[in-house]
């Protein structure tokens, strides 16, 4: 097979997106839906077929030269290597299942063409990020996922708050993109190339100061896309979009793009110890911040959104602790179980009659099909990190990497990770108990759950539960498959004595169990939500929106108002209007001279004649003086 065929992985979803965009509404609905699913499924199959190309040094394929000017030579190139291949497989696989789910979820929606073309376009853009060999191609995908995210969050744009949530997500992530853009241009200025592999190869020749700044810029770019601490406010509001969108974009794939970016640039980023500490710190702070917020949320999807932020925080910590394999491992298992949780949450919302508030649910285990409870529970135990689930092993690997890091400050981050794990177990089981246990407290009429909304959950639930198999640590007899697969890309090898590992595992089990028991104790029998200052503080996400409003939005609005009414309207408009008024009044005076009477003009004519005559006389007299 020709390696250029790798582009099919990328271009099939794009092709389907374009067809749906142009002709979707004229095609039969079934055709549009089947095409959308097929495009992504074909990309998945192709990824499996091309798997061999990723081994060793990977395969580079150039489709065409994009820009060529002087020394600038930017080609539309793909790099299907060991880092990209598992991520591609995960994205296309999860996206296929979510597309199937979406067909059923959106069956009453009239704008199916817009929905599926944006969803397919998103898959294309996401794959562009993953497979890009070139920062410009990566940036194309980076902006593309932002655009699709914006369009899909505000999919039901007739409700103003949805449109506002979309705009907010777009603007906040754009802040991060600016930093990424700066990093890109700076890297180009330093290395003279935009090829990611070449930049990584030349990373050692960059001065340490520039390296630190570049790493921090990349980190900020990643923060925007991955909803990490300074730029995290958009993710919870992004839940305004349809549930398949939340599952695909805001849980499984797009929000992990930041982690992937840092892993891609790991050879560069890892050269600066300060930057690595910063990445870990951002991850740790976000993890615990989001976990505390999730404890007080009332809407099922917002709980999951905050848990996503928290888990992505773990991935950042993994990158910061130097283990790319650990980060990617958690990224993969998280994608599976979080997609399950979101899709099951969509089913739950259906069952509760479009009710989002978990305090108005309850007893849904008996109300709907019992399998829904089991798949949700499967996702929940992975998230909570109960032993032997995929989430347990991946999270444990990260905590181990933090614990064994030579720098003692990482012990503090490890502690934060442990506390976050406790909170995670608590809020996860709080969610499970409130939604499924007890009596039904709501009033909504359940919608039926079609088969297509139910079976795509199973493969993902199994993948989440058994995800530990991908990278089973050595001390429990596993082969660390993923770590070996990444080889020299895997980052720092985490080695310690088995005793320490068993101790950490024991601690993790104890923490998860403690969280479960706490939730069991508190929510086994339904209790009304607490209404105090702390819960309001956590519900509003530590008032982050108000803070951003106060620090950025309000000064900006004030400045805009000053520019508009102070400068534009008063100064510029005033000056120009004043000049115009002056000209009008002078004109009004002058117009009186145009009497329209012949005599006036004749006398003016005579006066002019006299003046001319006088002038000539004067000249004559002067001339005569010579």
């Amino acid at each position, binding site marked *: 097979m020709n390696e250029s065929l790798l582009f099919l992985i990328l271009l099939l979803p794009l092709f389907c997106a374009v067809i749906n965009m142009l002709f979707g509404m004229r095609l039969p609905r079934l055709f549009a839906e089947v095409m959308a699913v097929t495009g992504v499924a074909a990309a998945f199959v192709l990824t499996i077929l091309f798997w061999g190309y990723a081994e060793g040094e990977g395969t580079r394929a150039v489709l065409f030269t994009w820009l060529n000017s002087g020394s600038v030579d930017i080609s539309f190139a793909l790099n299907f290597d060991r880092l990209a291949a598992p991520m591609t497989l995960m994205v296309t696989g999860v996206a296929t299942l979510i597309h199937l789910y979406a067909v059923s979820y959106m069956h009453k929606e009239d704008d199916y063409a817009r929905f599926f073309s944006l969803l397919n376009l998103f898959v294309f853009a996401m794959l562009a990020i993953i497979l890009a060999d070139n920062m410009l191609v990566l940036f194309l995908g980076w902006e593309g996922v932002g655009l699709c995210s914006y369009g899909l969050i505000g999919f039901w744009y007739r409700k103003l708050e949805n449109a506002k949530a979309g705009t907010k997500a777009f603007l906040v992530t754009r802040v991060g993109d600016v930093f990424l853009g700066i990093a890109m241009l700076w890297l180009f200025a330093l290395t003279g190339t935009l090829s990611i592999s070449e930049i990584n190869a030349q990373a050692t020749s960059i001065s340490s100061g520039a390296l630190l700044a570049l790493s921090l810029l990349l980190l900020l770019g990643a923060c925007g896309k991955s909803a990490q601490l300074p730029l995290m406010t958009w993710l919870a509001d992004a839940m305004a979009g349809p549930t398949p969108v939340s599952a695909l974009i805001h849980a499984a794939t797009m929000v992990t793009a930041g982690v992937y970016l840092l892993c891609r640039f790991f050879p560069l980023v890892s050269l600066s110890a300060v930057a690595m500490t910063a990445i870990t710190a951002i991850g740790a702070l976000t993890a615990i911040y989001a976990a505390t917020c999730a404890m007080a949320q009332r809407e099922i999807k917002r709980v999951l959104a905050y848990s996503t932020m928290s888990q992505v925080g773990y991935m950042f910590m993994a990158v910061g602790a130097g283990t790319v394999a650990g980060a990617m491992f958690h990224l993969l298992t998280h994608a599976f179980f979080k997609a399950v949780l979101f899709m099951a949450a969509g089913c739950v919302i259906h069952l509760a009659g479009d009710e989002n508030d978990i305090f108005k649910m309850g007893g849904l285990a008996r109300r709907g099909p019992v399998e829904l409870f089991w798949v949700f529970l499967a996702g929940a135990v992975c998230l909570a990190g109960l032993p032997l689930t995929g989430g347990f092993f991946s999270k444990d690997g990260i905590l181990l990497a933090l614990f064994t890091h030579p720098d003692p400050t990482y012990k503090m981050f490890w502690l934060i990770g442990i506390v976050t794990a406790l909170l995670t177990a608590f809020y996860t089981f709080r969610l499970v108990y409130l939604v499924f246990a007890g009596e039904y407290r709501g009033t909504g009429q359940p919608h039926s759950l079609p088969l297509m909304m139910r079976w795509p959950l199973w493969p993902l639930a199994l993948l989440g539960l058994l995800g530990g198999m991908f990278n089973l640590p050595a001390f429990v007899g596993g082969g660390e498959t993923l770590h070996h697969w990444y080889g020299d890309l895997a980052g720092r090898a985490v080695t310690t004595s088995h005793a320490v590992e068993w101790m950490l595992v024991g601690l993790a089990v104890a923490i998860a169990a403690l969280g479960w028991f706490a939730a069991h104790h508190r929510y086994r029998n339904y209790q009304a939500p607490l209404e105090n200052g702390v819960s309001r503080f956590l519900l509003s996400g530590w008032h982050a929106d108000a803070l951003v409003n106060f620090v950025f939005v309000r000064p900006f609005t004030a400045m805009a108002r000053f520019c508009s009414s102070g400068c534009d309207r008063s100064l510029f408009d005033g000056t120009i209007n004043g000049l115009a008024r002056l000209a009008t009044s002078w004109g009004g005076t002058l*117009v*009186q*001279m*145009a*009497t*329209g*009477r*012949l*005599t006036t003009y*004749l*006398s003016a004519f*005579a006066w002019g004649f006299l003046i001319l005559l006088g002038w000539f006389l004067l000249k004559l007299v002067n001339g005569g003086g010579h």
Partner: protein
Amino acid sequence: MMVPFGHAIAFAGALFVLGLTCVLLRREILMILIGVEIMLNAASLVFVAASAYWQQPDGQVFVILLMAITAAEVAVALAMVVYLWRRKRTLVADEFNGMRG
């Protein structure tokens, strides 16, 4: 007997001022037109006098041209006077102020 050049110029000047005064002070259009004719005649007189003084024919050529133009001008002007009379039944110039700004 040659009339001295200075006399001719002085006479033409006096005639011109008389015509101008007529144009400026009279209110009827017809009288203004007559004033204009007098001023034109004064100009013709200067041409003739200058022609005689410098012994050049150009001035006389000009006067003949001027006569033709004056005849045409009077024809057009009188037609307009008739037209204006029909419009307003008056020939007072100040009554026609439709071009006021």
